[in-house]
């Protein structure tokens, strides 16, 4: 690819980041802060030391896992908004293992991760069943299941898994140390979490790029009717996409529970599912961009927690900056799609959300 091509492909992203930067700076000025100081705090707060770099990677890992899972469902044209619920259910499944299984760490951790994958996959599979057989749009089915998973977590934390003598939504008793994801030295950085995230991205990249499964999934996503007529069992492929994508989200939940909180809390997902949707959109649904974009988000999230401490800014500034970034990327994408539309008649950009439940048969 020559330089001009590269520029053509990436200019939307560059434009979005530049615009976000400008508006972010303006916002910081309005909030009464020196923008460059703020930027410095964010960078220092996320990369400034080994420990902070580790903290950032611990946010990065679940974000990448969830986003990688979303690429699969997006490829199949599905708006898996229920990803949050899949993270929660994966975390619940992993917590079950972490609480109940005793043995060497490698065994518990392996089982917990597997359980997370299975749990998230199962939860997404339910949304898939609702979609393919119940004709319930996956956005609504997914959201409904998210609330169910959330309620289940609250129930477990307040009920069967409550701490002795306590019934508080603040979480279960911490897991025994053997069930914590192993970390590097004395840092909080779990190499297992990072490794799992890296593998997930590679697998998704390969799956969508180099396999018949991925190609068929894309066909289903872009034109279900044609895909069906080509002999692809569209229902089954959608279910598979849900199960795989949900499985990766469930892994994110397992990492959150066994590697970050070391216990089950009701808000175990940390909102990373919704954030991952934005990561996937910003990445233009391409696996190779997931890791760097998620890293920027993780930096913003972790680094901006220091803004109130160092600059006395409100703690919501980080969230606002993320929002600005997302807004401009979406605007830029829309702008690019329009331009492209006009210049060669091909609609580019994200799959349209399927508002009307599509036909399967």
């Amino acid at each position, binding site marked *: 690819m020559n330089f001009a091509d590269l520029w053509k492909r990436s200019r939307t992203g560059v434009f979005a980041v530049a615009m976000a930067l400008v508006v972010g700076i303006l916002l910081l000025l309005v909030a009464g802060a020196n923008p460059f100081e703020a930027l410095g705090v964010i960078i220092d*707060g996320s990369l400034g*030391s080994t*420990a902070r770099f580790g*903290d950032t990677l611990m*946010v990065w890992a679940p974000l990448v896992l969830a986003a990688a899972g979303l690429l699969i469902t997006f490829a199949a044209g599905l708006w898996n908004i229920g990803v949050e619920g899949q993270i929660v259910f994966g975390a619940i499944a992993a917590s079950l293992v972490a609480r109940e299984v005793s043995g060497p760490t490698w065994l518990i951790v392996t089982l917990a991760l597997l359980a997370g994958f299975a749990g998230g996959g199962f939860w997404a599979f339910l949304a898939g069943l609702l979609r393919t057989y119940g004709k319930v749009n996956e956005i609504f089915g997914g959201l409904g299941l998210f*609330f169910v998973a*959330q*309620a289940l977590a*609250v129930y477990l934390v*307040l009920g069967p898994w*409550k701490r*002795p*003598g*306590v*019934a*508080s*939504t*603040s*979480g279960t008793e*911490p897991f025994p140390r053997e069930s914590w994801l192993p970390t590097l030295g*004395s840092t*909080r950085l779990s190499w297992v979490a990072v490794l799992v995230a890296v593998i997930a991205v590679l697998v998704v990249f390969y799956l969508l790029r180099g396999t018949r499964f991925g190609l068929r999934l894309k066909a289903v996503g872009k034109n279900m009717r044609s895909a069906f007529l080509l002999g692809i069992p569209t229902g089954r492929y959608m279910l598979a996409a849900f199960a795989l994508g949900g499985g990766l989200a469930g892994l994110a939940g397992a990492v959150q529970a066994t590697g*970050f*909180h*070391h*216990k089950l*809390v*009701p*808000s*175990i*997902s*940390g*909102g*990373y599912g919704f954030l991952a949707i934005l990561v996937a959109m910003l990445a233009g649904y391409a696996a190779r961009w997931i890791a760097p974009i998620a890293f920027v988000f*993780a930096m913003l*999230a*972790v680094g901006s*927690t*220091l803004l*109130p*401490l*160092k600059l006395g800014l409100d*703690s919501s500034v980080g969230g606002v900056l993320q929002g600005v970034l997302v807004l401009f990327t979406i605007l830029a994408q829309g702008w690019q799609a329009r331009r492209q539309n006009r210049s060669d008649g091909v609609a580019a950009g994200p799959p349209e959300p399927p508002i009307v439940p599509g036909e399967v048969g």
Partner: protein
Amino acid sequence: MSTTKVSRVLLVFVAFALIAAACGDSEPVDAEGFKFGMILVGPQNDHGWSQAHYEAGQYVAELTGAEMIVQDKVNPSDLPEKTVDQVAADLIALGAELVFATSDDMKDGILLAAEQNPDVPMIWSSGDSAWEDGKAFAGLDNLGNVMGKMEFGKMIAGCAAGLTTQTGSIGYVGPLTNDETQRLVNSAYLGAKYCWETYREETTPLDFAVTWIGFWFNIPGFTLDPTQVSNEFLDSGADVLISGIDTTEALVEAGKRASEGEAVWSVPYDFEGACAEAPDICLGTPYFNWGPAYLEIVNSVVNGDFKAEWQWNGPDWDNLTDNTKTALGWVSGDGLSADASADLDDFIAGLGSGDINLFTGPLNYQDGSVYLADGEEATDFQIWYTEQLLEGITGESASGG
């Protein structure tokens, strides 16, 4: 040494200690350049629990010249990317030489932080990790605990309710269930029952019910809605609502009913100015006052004699609103009638002098098991680790139901 000699020595010692406590230790040191960190569970301006800590920190900073670094909203919903131990590490990296973790929820994180930073003194407020005789002694030399004896505040709140209720039915809007909250509900119940029977000479049993919403404040989707809970109480005949949560829904709802002509009252919680939302029907409010204890701790760290202690501080019975001394306060509200006010003062005096000790047997737990045998006075241990609600209260216990 004879026993009288021992007691005399002791007496002198206690007197000295009292004087020291009253003026000595609370005398602020000059702590210019000293930084302490404060981790809050909610927003620093929540008009409740978190604000009380925040203001205590400000109070200390003002008196000593120390600098406070605050991280608020530290809970997994508002700050998913950081756990308490990470926040503590951030504060330490910013120069904090003392860290306050001010919520019951922060146990796991602050224990981890204390373990990882053995040289930095820390306080876990409302906890019991430094209580050698407690159930959860952690043995960490750098982690102390502070708590106020809010059971007295709740007894007063309960008494005010017992003196006021017309229907003989009181509702308690409770947060989550644990030892602390059960202890407080039991205290309010005992206070209400005592005043109902003693001052009003009623013989019909008092109806006292609690509904737990699931957390310290309303989180839609996670907890019950306290507004709804309050209205359900009022609809079922309760005419006084006692709040055990951080926010003021019970008072607000009762205020609305009162403005429609109903005879209902409420007792809020946690914040000195809480009555402001519906002053006419507010019977008063008990509140925590962390300032004196935090000042003492900052002093000890600056002076280099910090000890990881478990503190459970009582009120200043002489003046329940002297915020330079008392660990918990009570302000009466406009809703309290003159008669009731007089009885309440009598009750408070009785508590202060020790004439009234409501944690005296016979008292049974909800499931009928004996909490205190006839004539038995409860130890700190028995009060702190309250396993169930008392017999006579309607509502769920953490370990019972």
